[in-house]
């Protein structure tokens, strides 16, 4: 079971995870990560923009890579774009597998790639206006763990 989506409106991860888990009967474990807009001091809103011709195909390529690297029964990967408020979910990745290390590893792998190798651009609104978020060195180090 493979479910890859870009959403431009708020979503409720709990409504995705139950059906995803049920769609993979016989699984041994499901690992799920939900990322939310942090309530950082002074941040009023966050906007994620993307480039449609690359972003969703890129997420499908990432899912292909996860299925190649880990022994998975199912993968759910849902990412928001557009304007979000603190506390709103941005991303939900869930992996179902016979063995826990595959499920945990696949979620870790997908999250690292979504953070620093997927076609999203992020800006924050503060009292003095909008600010683009630069890529973080830490994200690139996280990604490097999967290379070579």
């Amino acid at each position: 079971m493979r479910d890859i989506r870009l959403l431009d409106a708020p979503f409720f991860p709990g409504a995705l995870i139950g059906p995803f888990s049920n769609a993979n009967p016989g699984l041994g474990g499901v690992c799920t990560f939900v990322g939310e807009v942090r309530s950082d001091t002074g941040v009023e809103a966050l906007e994620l923009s993307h480039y449609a011709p690359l972003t969703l195909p890129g997420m499908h390529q990432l899912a292909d890579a996860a299925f190649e690297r880990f022994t998975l029964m199912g993968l759910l990967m849902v990412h928001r774009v557009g304007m979000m408020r603190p506390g709103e979910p941005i991303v939900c990745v869930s992996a179902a597998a016979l063995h826990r290390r595959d499920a945990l590893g696949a979620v870790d792998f997908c999250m690292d790639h979504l953070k620093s190798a997927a076609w999203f651009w992020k800006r924050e609104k503060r009292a003095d206006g909008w600010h683009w978020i630069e890529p973080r060195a830490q994200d690139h180090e996280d990604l490097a763990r999967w290379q070579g």
Partner: protein
Amino acid sequence: MATVVLLGKLADLGGAPALTVPLPLAAGLDWAGLKAALPAMLAEAIEDPRVRVAVNGALVPNKHKLQAGAGDEIALLPPVSGG
């Protein structure tokens, strides 16, 4: 004409999320031609080696060898900061 789509902070430098660029009749648009048609600050910013270019949704391996024609969509993609 070609459409230039500006992502991330390049949209701020271009003043809009997309620009249209006139094409010389019967000639394609190359990297130098593209830069000449863009606002100076944007033209400078896209020389950053981390800025990637896609034509009609396909990444260009070497942006300096860009070749675009009438009706093409050229996307200028700064470093991502997603997730």
